[in-house]
């Protein structure tokens, strides 16, 4: 069996798992409901693609990591451990990891992208100003910007998915996997921003490099890229973030996380550390349970 065949089979298996799991469909419908509620409260949908993206940016910063962790935290861990099954495939570790990752990423893209596409379709029908008295025009608004926003959102999800998967290979039990997943969630949603904030107030981060340093925090990188390449088109005011630093930051998290998964998948190299971390997180989770 070729490298691609193995990859394809694994990916396909993951996609089918996502498709067959009804709760993922429910999750997608739930996201659509949240988007609809947010846009109703914010009013962006009447304004056009850019205001819609602005309204959805903050909810997505929370929801995308949530979906990514939900998809990733038990990719290799948990009591119903799939790892022996996966490892029994006649494929390399790299293909295996890539397959699982790409399969789940396609699932993630569907779960988040579906509702977003629906929102985009709604904007195209009711967005933008109309007037019988005055001439109107689109200004800087464009569906392309919304697709950009969608693409950035999926990329952000892809990074957090990889991080969640990396967390899942480091632990043994499903409870520990959940705790590790939640840890990823907290780090992504608030940790990076708070560190940047602390660094700035403690003068550890100079004002001139803030835009660059922010690239290291995945959600700051995501927010910055949206502000720069979607919202910034209408305001013509750049400087939301150092684009190359943000791209490098996201890519770095992705590569490091996937690397960690590849290395950690067969439990050999870092067994000791892994066991230790696993037990620690297990105990923390146990303590939380009580």
């Amino acid at each position, binding site marked *: 069996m070729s490298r691609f065949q193995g990859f394809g089979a694994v990916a396909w298996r993951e996609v089918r798992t996502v498709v067959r799991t009804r709760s993922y469909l429910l999750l997608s419908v739930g996201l659509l409901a949240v988007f609809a509620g947010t846009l109703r409260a914010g009013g962006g949908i009447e*304004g056009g693609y850019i205001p819609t993206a602005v309204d959805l940016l903050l909810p997505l910063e929370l929801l995308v990591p949530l979906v990514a962790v939900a998809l990733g935290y038990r990719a290799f861990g948990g009591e119903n451990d799939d790892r022996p099954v996966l490892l029994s495939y006649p494929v390399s570790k790299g293909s295996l990891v890539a397959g699982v990752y790409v399969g789940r990423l396609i699932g993630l893209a569907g779960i988040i992208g579906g509702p977003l596409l629906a929102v985009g379709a709604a904007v195209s029908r009711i967005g933008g100003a109309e007037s019988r008295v005055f001439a109107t025009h689109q200004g*800087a608004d464009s569906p392309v910007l919304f697709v950009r926003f969608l693409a950035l959102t999926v990329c952000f999800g892809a990074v957090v998915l990889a991080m969640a998967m990396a967390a899942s290979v480091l632990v043994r039990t499903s409870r520990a996997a959940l705790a590790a997943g939640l840890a990823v969630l907290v780090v992504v949603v608030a940790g990076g921003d708070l560190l940047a904030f602390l660094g700035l107030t403690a003068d550890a981060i100079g004002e001139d490099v803030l835009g660059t340093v922010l690239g290291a925090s995945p959600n700051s990188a995501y927010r910055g890229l949206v502000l720069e390449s979607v919202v910034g088109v209408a305001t*013509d005011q750049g400087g939301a973030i150092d684009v190359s630093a943000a791209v490098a930051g996201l890519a770095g998290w992705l590569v490091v996380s996937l690397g960690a998964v590849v290395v950690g998948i067969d439990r050999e190299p870092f067994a000791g550390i892994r066991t230790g971390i696993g037990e620690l997180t297990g105990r923390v989770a146990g303590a939380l349970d009580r």
Partner: protein
Amino acid sequence: MSAESQPRIETRTVTAVSILVLVVGLVAGLFIVDLGSATPEPVDFDETVSVGLTLEDELRLDNSDADIELPKVQTFYSQYPYVVGYYGVESFAAEQRQPAHEQRFGFPNAIYVTDYAGRDVELTETGLPVTGNSTAERTATGGHNHGGTAGGSGNWVLAEEAVYVVDSEARTPSGETVMPFGDREAAEAFVESYGGEIVGWEAVLEVPAGDDDAEAVRGRIADRHAEANATVDSRTRLRDRPVETVVGEDEPTVQSAIEAAPPNTTVLVPEGTYREHVDVDKPLTLRADGDARIVGNDNGTVVTITANRTAFVGLNVSGVGGSTPGPTVTDGHSTGNVGGASHDHGDTVGDDSWDADVEDDYAQGDTAIEVTNAEDVLVDETEIHTDAAGIILYASPGSVVRGTTVVGSENYREGHMGIVAMRSPGVIENSTFVGGLDGVYTHRSEGIAVRGNEMIDNRMGIHLMFTSGALLTDNAMSGQETAGIYVMTGPQRNAIVGNEIRDTETAISVGGTDSYVAENVVTENDLGVRIEATASIVERNVVADNRNGIEAWALLPTNRVTHNDFVDNRRHVSVSSGRLRVWTHDGEGNYWEGAIGPTDGTVIQRPYTPTAPVDGRLHQVDGAATLARAPALDALAGFQGAVPGMRADEVIDVAPLCAPVNDEWFEATERTDTEPICRSGGGSAAQTRYDD
């Protein structure tokens, strides 16, 4: 894994990889594609949201015979869905220098200017540009025509591609103007005839504006008060002319005394009732000595003044005829929106005929005192009872009316104005107007001052038509059926300051541009302030206990609305049209009863959106504060103002004040519902704000 399934997997794999490559390629393409390449085509100027010319000027230009075409600009902004039209390149240049301009509209995607090249442009005597007479001719010669032809919809050129003639003899009604040309030769030919020099677009953007901006309006108030004071002082001296004639001693009637008296002297009118009609046709002072009453025969006008520098002091006037202009005037303005963009005098023909229409309607009928073509007249301490008009000033600039009381018809539909000031800028102060149509109605009286008057139970308190540069201060009004102060027909530079208006349908309705509405107290009205004006400042007003606090009408979000106190209005703000407005300037907004959030002692660090369903109910509905603090709603509020020009119909204050601005008023009224929430910053809010 069975051998049979392998080819299927192979196909799938190839498909999957191709899709992956395609997706990555598309995504990369998304970020490379240049979105700004398509330049929109110019539109008919009538379809733009236009600024820079008063309605008066527009109508006069529409009605003039010559084919006048002012230089115009139309701008397509990145965030603003309407095309914005400017009369005069210089008015665009001034507007784009305003600090919040780009934040509100985004940057210009495309700017077109009028192209005069190849159109036989000439200037009228007053410097107004005139182009070739017929449309057909224009089309044939319009070398740089970008679109339609009718009514000046064509003949546009991209601003960056044009050259401009500055400092030439060309004018708009507002002053000097810049002339754009699509090619350099045409511009050179123009310079040869009318002077000036040729510059590029970048240089034009730096040309100083002919008009004052709204900021300057604020600074002019004191100067204008001083001017008004000087006028009043000069007119008041007319009271002191030597007495040469006494009615009853020297002459039997007031009229015969006037005829006998030498000019520039005083005719003294002792206590008593004088049943006659009086005509003053030379500069005299008519002064009462005690309770002197001139009573007409209930037919026609009682006192007619046609001489400059006449003074009319201390007399009572009644017995006025009952003829009034009738329903055209009474109903003409109470329902329609005269100041709106749709206002059209298209049925009138020829210069000034629109003006004649209004004069026919408003300057007709009987009046207690009529002043016609007489400059610098004084009407002082006079009491008037009338079922028609009180005083009609016609073409009598420099007139002063003070300390006077006009009691009009109880039913305004049967009455007329307290004072009609037609082409008669002057000063009206410390007077009282009860009942009748409008307390003070002005028409083309640029620079009139209306100060310290009391107006009760009229149709409108002060009604400005085609009047720019007016000073309306410290008036007290109540019980107006239509409005306390109504500024119609898009004038410029009016100041409405320190008035107290309560219990009206609309306290203040202000149209036009570059106007200043400040320090007014509007309470218990159906509507506190309607803002139709653009490029104006609305600040430090108290808006309390109204059904609707402020209604935002202006389509262009160019006003600065800050440091107002909104208390106990059923709705603080409503919006009738337009895009999102940000009512914050330099990090400070307004005081909103109900606004919540952490504060730094000056402002609340949570945006307040008075037009939003939850924020708008904060000061009235229990539980709204809990809902407003929901992370989902809180998170939304954070970015609301990011692209204001793309958002519909909202008002947002990103830095609400935590304590009222006019705290003296609140203390005087002993209100308890404005408990400041500045404390989280340490100490009392009001103290941190006002002690330093």
